[in-house]
């Protein structure tokens, strides 16, 4: 039997239907992006308060100040959040890491370092793809993983452009020496930097920023972008503040100066 017209129409129809679905899907996946809209009273969050959209937490990192070989932020984060070492670079959990970068294809190019963590995007792709809304953006802009709800499908790790996420692939137990303010982890759950949300909720700054100021070179500054008088707002108003991969439109809330 040769293929007749009906076969071709059938096949063509199936494919057309598939194509239509693809385009409809992508249409609703883009929303307008606005930033630094409100001019609100500076709001301080205290224990027991609800996170509110009056705040918009973010960070500015001055790379020129970031010291070579200094890993105060990484160490502080590991200590604060009880991040373990698995001795296997492929499986290790990283909430914050130091990245070394240089011009590609230029021999002897200058090397620079910068810390990178979760950038707490305004339009977080990880939260968009999470099937159970375990990853979500809190009212004050912090992108969090609800470890109680995560099913471990790892779609967020596929969707994150910044490789901010780690999957716990080994059993870890709470240990007596741990920081008791931060519960630890269970294998099968995805986790990432949460801007030390427990500290923010009691009015402190993230551990990495604190240790960068105290032990490092003060390259990291944390604050509220909604507060026009805050240090971070002042810094992002300069022309030197940049986001990583702005072309993607995720609008990270971590800015870098001197890239």
């Amino acid at each position, binding site marked *: 039997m040769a293929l007749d017209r009906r076969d071709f129409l059938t096949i063509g129809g199936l494919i057309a239907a598939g194509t239509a679905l693809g385009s409809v*899907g992508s249409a609703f996946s883009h929303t307008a992006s606005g930033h630094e809209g409100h001019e609100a009273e500076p709001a301080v969050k205290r224990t027991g308060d609800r996170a509110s959209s009056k705040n918009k937490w973010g960070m500015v990192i001055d790379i020129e100040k970031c010291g070579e070989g200094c890993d105060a932020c990484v160490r502080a984060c590991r200590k604060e959040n009880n991040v373990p070492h698995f001795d296997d670079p492929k499986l290790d959990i990283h909430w914050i890491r130091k990245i*070394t970068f*240089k011009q590609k294809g230029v021999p002897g190019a200058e090397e620079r370092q910068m810390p990178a963590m979760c950038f707490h995007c305004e339009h977080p792709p990880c939260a968009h*793809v*999470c099937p159970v809304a*375990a990853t979500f953006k809190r009212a004050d802009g912090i992108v969090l993983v609800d470890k109680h709800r995560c099913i471990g499908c790892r779609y967020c790790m596929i969707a994150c452009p910044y*490789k901010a996420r780690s999957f*716990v692939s080994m059993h870890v137990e709470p240990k007596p020496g741990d920081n008791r303010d931060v519960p630890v982890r269970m294998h099968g759950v995805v986790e990432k930097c949460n801007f030390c949300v427990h500290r923010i909720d009691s009015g402190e700054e993230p551990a990495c920023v604190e240790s960068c100021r105290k032990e490092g070179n003060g390259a990291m500054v944390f604050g509220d972008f909604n507060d026009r008088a805050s240090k971070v707002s002042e810094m992002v108003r300069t022309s030197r503040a940049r986001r990583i991969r702005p072309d993607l439109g995720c609008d990270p809330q971590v800015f870098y100066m001197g890239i």
Partner: protein
Amino acid sequence: MATKIKHTRIEGKSSAYLVFMIVAGALAALSPLSALYLFFEGHHVTSMTNQVPWGMPIVMAIYLIGASAGSLVLSAMSSVFGRAEYKPFSRMAALLAVLLIVAALMAIIMDWGRPDRILVPFFHFQPRSMFSLNAILYSLYMALGIVYLWAMFHNKEKLERLLGLCAVALAILVHSGTGAIFGFVYVRELYNSPLLPPSFIAAALSSGTALMIITLHYTFRFTGRKLDERHVHNLGKLMGVFILVVIYFIFIENVTRSYAPKNYEAASFLLLHGGKYTAYFWIGLVLMGLVVPAIIALNGATGKSVRWILAASWLQLAGVMLERYLIVIPAQILPLEFFPNKEITSGFLDGQFAEYSVSLLEWIYSLGLAGVVMFGYGLAIRLWPMVPTEAAYPEQLLKTN
């Protein structure tokens, strides 16, 4: 319908059946065993890492969903599209569709880090997540497939037609959704493509047809029932055409991607210097998985030989598996770009090509899923009248040819 088709249960007394069921059962048992091991140990026992979070289980899942959607469309050919020559194996195809989607759901869920939280997705619907949408689509699809099968058994022609139509629509939606899981990921050049949903459907149809040919042939041979060879020729042709469509999509997708300078790195990784991935692509997928089976199926002489068509079907099944692998894996191997034109390194393996090779556990896991489908099929044709006593070719069609 010109001829009344009589379905009966198979006897299941032959030693071939016993051997098949023992082998399939043993394989099927591997599935929950490997899943339990994975659940209690954590994913460090596989080669999935923080660089390559999705491995063989996801490859299997989309492969099985594809084969399921393809089978369902074939099953509905007779009732919905009025093609009498597909009638004899309509039930078998619908059965396969249901079994395959069950195995696919197992593949997805057992791969979660916390499969014990299985009920969570049903309580937290997230319309923007392709996974969440698909969870609903897959469940609906499975339920509809079962009702459709039931309608076929009770000779409710009108209902069967209606359900078949819905099921085909849903199959297409389900598989487009599966393609969209990857196509919508805009941060990875090798995923992001509006062509993935339709291309998934084309591959679903071709692999579904290949699976049907294989199932038909062996079922009829081992039950000693009569299968008119023209069924195989016909399905072979259909498969050939579907493969051409797959080739077309793969061609367009890669050409489009390669055109933009910003994608040179990603495109050339897959097509030119990706090591084993490039070899898999050109030799495994394009040559052995697509071109050769298409030629066999569409060529006049080989297209009339059951043996050749069977060989082409096996090649096509393996080819589509490789296609799924090449969709899922290389996009994760390629490092994410932090800054264009800058080289980056870090303790988290940023800026480096990741490594992935299927681990033993993932092989066992995948074989287990195949075992589930085989065991379910063997059991179902023993329990219910699925297989026709004789698959004659409808005569009135011969006249039009």
